[in-house]
């Protein structure tokens, strides 16, 4: 890299920022466009309602499909390709799939909520069916035959021995047309690609060292930056001497703007070294005091601002001699991606900005970044590049904002890559919210007669939205403020997700005690409130079954009317051998069920656990799950996601809690935030997929989280005779429960 000899100070934008750095010769050629009044170039806007926004066939029969969803490691790239290939009668390998990019793809919001197949899968399938119909109709006209007489194979439309290529037909057609409402889809019994196990397209590259992640991107002239974050929430930068940092080898400059502090270097490890030195010299105010961790659930209950009714039927008044009541808690837990967040950004010579990010929402992230920088959204392009698996809203958007802020202060043409350190990811990502739940239920004549469920929770979604969702925007001078969270009761739920039991209960009342304040930063983590709610609910159902002297599986079936719910319960029980399973010493079996969001995938799981009485160590020994996520596009993909959900939920349930003292997050590495290790991995995990041809796609990714927690809790109850109500079931906790008896 060319390193310039000059060092000069820049004063850009609103003037609050001073960046001093040495410049490469090529970087000095571009002038920053700030303050010009000429019409400003923007990126092309994509219209969601046009066919060519979703699918294009060029004159060479090359097929490109566009999705607004992002590959997060869940395998969506392969499943979406299968859907398009099916309706176009081509092999999946013939499809080029472009994923989330505000410059190229439709706006599909966030890749979240297990909605990629229901949303994008459905849209792409319809668009592909429309494309097929248009091609077939045009070919029929050209060949002067009836459309029904044509066959499609090898990207050709055939009538007897005459054939037209897709490209030939497409070239003569106007395909820049509105999306059709409801094109005819292929009949379920004619499907050849949907429902088949197509190998994941990304795995060969990933196991041979191909560049696969944003962390692997290398752009010409790319600089490396590291951010120095405050020691805790709300701490302000009171003093920092940057002159010695600027003299370090390879250091290009220090960015200090308000409480945002970063260092830019030519080489990555130079940036790391300089970051450490810069952190050592920075002086911060004390910041916001955090609650006492041991008291967090009482503190949170005290912060309740209003109560929303999630569901109410009859007059719930659990009373009589068969009543169960308990308080359940879930701690703050982290996404903990194995690859810490990374963002890359480059200011273009025309003043536009390109940001590469593993965000779950390129369009919302674009809006937030544009707001942070005072730019028109159309002048910012956010391109999704895969990162390490995210499981929700982690540091991805923040790292993108860090890179965008730094790049916007650099000369055009100079890309900058910001890689978060492990301790930054663990301390600053938005955590899955702590929750507490009080359940009361009564059994009358062998059935659940009354049930109340009171949950205390923050909102689980503080995604961009506004710039206030981004750390950099909050920390820079002229800071953005986060949106005020509002209680909202919706069908799919948020903190209240799955709080309302799917079981038939005549008298029930489900309330969300809303907590607007966030002592710790929180946002969406796989399954949102469903993880803790299903844990509490399914624990309570088992206790009520005990009161009714009923088998837990039979008791659930007695309260379930939905045939698809019953089918997963029956299959999981049968494949596990529920009725015949014997209990070894220290071992127990447990069962749980939920329909995710009460409107998506059905999942039931039976587990066996082992509890070491001497140490409290609790281990998942085996798990058998049955899942119905509607029409199964990639059965092996569904199994892979569900196996992963089972093991991740087991890790949350057995080991995980964010720790903090009165000033800062203290679970900043893998020894202070332990997760599942190979020594404790189960002996077997089985996932059985119930395919529902012709039914809508229901999504898969989050269905296992709550049921697994419930089943493990129930199995521990079965093993040691004690109901554990506080997550996680750490050794200390289990041992304490055993000791207390």
């Amino acid at each position, binding site marked *: 890299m060319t390193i310039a000899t000059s060092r000069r100070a820049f004063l850009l934008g609103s003037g609050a920022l001073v960046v001093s750095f040495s410049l490469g010769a090529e970087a000095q050629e571009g002038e920053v466009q700030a303050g010009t009044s000429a019409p400003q170039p923007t990126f092309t806007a994509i219209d969601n309602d046009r066919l060519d926004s979703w699918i294009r066939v060029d004159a060479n029969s090359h097929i490109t499909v566009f999705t607004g969803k992002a590959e997060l490691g869940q395998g969506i790239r392969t499943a979406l390709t299968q859907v398009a290939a099916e309706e176009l009668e081509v092999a999946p390998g013939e499809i080029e799939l472009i994923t989330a990019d505000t410059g190229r793809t439709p706006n599909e919001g966030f890749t979240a909520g297990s909605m990629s197949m229901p949303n994008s899968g459905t849209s792409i399938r319809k668009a592909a069916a429309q494309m097929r119909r248009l091609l077939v109709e045009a070919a029929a006209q050209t060949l002067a035959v009836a459309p029904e007489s044509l066959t499609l194979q090898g990207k050709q439309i055939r009538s007897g021995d005459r054939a037209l290529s897709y490209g030939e037909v497409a070239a003569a057609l106007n395909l820049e047309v509105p999306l059709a409402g409801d094109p005819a889809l292929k009949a379920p019994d004619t499907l050849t690609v949907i429902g088949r196990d197509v190998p994941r397209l990304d795995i*060969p590259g990933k196991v041979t060292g*191909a560049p696969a992640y944003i962390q692997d991107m290398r752009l010409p002239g790319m600089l490396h930056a590291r951010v120095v974050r405050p020691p805790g929430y709300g701490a302000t930068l009171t003093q920092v001497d940057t002159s010695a940092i600027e003299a370090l080898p390879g250091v290009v400059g220090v960015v200090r703007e308000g409480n945002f502090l970063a260092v830019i270097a030519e080489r990555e*490890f130079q940036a790391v070294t300089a970051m450490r030195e810069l952190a050592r010299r920075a002086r911060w105010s004390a910041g916001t005091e955090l609650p006492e961790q041991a008291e967090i659930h009482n503190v949170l209950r005290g912060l309740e601002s209003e109560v929303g009714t999630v569901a109410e039927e009859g007059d719930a008044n659990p009373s009589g001699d068969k009543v169960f009541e308990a308080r359940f808690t879930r701690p703050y837990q982290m996404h903990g991606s194995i690859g810490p967040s990374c963002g890359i950004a480059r200011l273009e010579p025309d003043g536009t900005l390109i940001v590469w990010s593993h965000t779950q929402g390129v369009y919302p992230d674009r809006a937030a970044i544009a707001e942070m920088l005072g730019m028109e959204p159309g002048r910012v392009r956010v391109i999704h590049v895969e990162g390490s*698996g995210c499981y929700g809203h982690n540091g991805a958007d923040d790292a993108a904002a860090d890179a965008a802020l730094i790049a916007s202060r650099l000369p055009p043409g100079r890309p900058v890559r910001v890689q978060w350190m*492990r301790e930054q990811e663990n301390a600053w990502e938005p955590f899955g919210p702590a929750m507490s739940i009080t359940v009361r239920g009564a059994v009358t004549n062998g059935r659940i007669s009354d049930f109340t469920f009171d949950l205390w929770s923050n909102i689980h979604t503080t995604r961009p939205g506004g710039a206030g969702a981004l750390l950099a925007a909050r920390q820079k001078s002229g800071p953005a403020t986060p949106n005020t969270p509002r209680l909202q009761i919706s069908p799919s739920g948020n903190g209240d997700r799955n709080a309302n039991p799917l079981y038939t209960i005549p008298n029930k009342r489900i309330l969300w005690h809303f907590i607007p304040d966030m002592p710790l930063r929180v946002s969406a983590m796989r399954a949102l409130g469903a993880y803790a709610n299903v844990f509490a609910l399914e624990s309570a159902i088992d206790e009520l079954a005990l009161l009714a002297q009923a088998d837990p599986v039979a008791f659930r079936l007695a309260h379930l009317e939905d045939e698809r719910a019953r089918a997963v319960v029956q299959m999981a029980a049968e494949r596990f051998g529920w009725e015949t399973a014997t209990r070894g010493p220290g071992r127990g079996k447990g069962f749980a069920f939920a329909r995710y969001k009460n409107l998506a995938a059905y999942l039931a799981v039976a587990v066996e656990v082992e509890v070491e009485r001497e140490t409290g160590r609790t281990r998942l020994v085996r798990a058998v799950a049955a899942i119905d996520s509607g029409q199964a596009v990639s059965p092996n993909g569904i199994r892979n996601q569900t196996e992963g959900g089972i093991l*991740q939920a087991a890790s949350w349930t057995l080991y995980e809690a964010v720790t903090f003292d009165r000033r800062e997050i203290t679970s900043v590495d*893998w020894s202070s935030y332990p997760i599942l290790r190979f020594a404790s991995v189960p002996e077997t995990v089985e996932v059985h997929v119930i395919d529902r041809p012709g039914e809508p796609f229901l999504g898969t990714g989050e269905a296992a989280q709550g049921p697994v927690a419930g089943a493990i809790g129930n199995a521990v109850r079965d093993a040691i005779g004690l109901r554990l109500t506080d997550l996680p079931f750490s050794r200390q906790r289990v041992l304490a429960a055993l000791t207390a008896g």
Partner: protein
Amino acid sequence: MTVKLKVNGAVHEVDADPATPLLYVLREDLELNAAKYGCGLGQCGSCMVLVDGEATLSCVVPILALGEREITTLEGLGTVEDPAPIQSAFIELQAAQCGYCIPGMMMSAQALLQRNASPSDQEIRDALRTNLCRCGTHMRILAAIRRASEMMSAGAPSNRRAG
């Protein structure tokens, strides 16, 4: 200063501070992608490579400590066109979700299989004790390593040097 490193059979001269961890040199100077940054603390195994056949955490080993030793990364085992048994096995069993941790898993497994082509399940788990996966792909990772063991024991399908 210039440091010589022997990586995947070739000697490379890199201009870097000798205190630089090997991981940064592999990724930035040699443009090798497989070894990943995960924690920089030697806790997660994403950066695993082989040094003289031993599974080694490249994020905590400075390049000055390496001298003439032979460094092997996942790229040195095989390619998409000609994969090593461990790579074929992970593809065959679809043993990845996001895949970020997988190269590190494969290198830990490779080190094991080179000294013990038919490990027990417990030996496989022990070999992976420093490797973390967050997607929950563990069952498939174990199965893929068992499959690679079968392939390597059978001497097929690859005739390549084992790492």
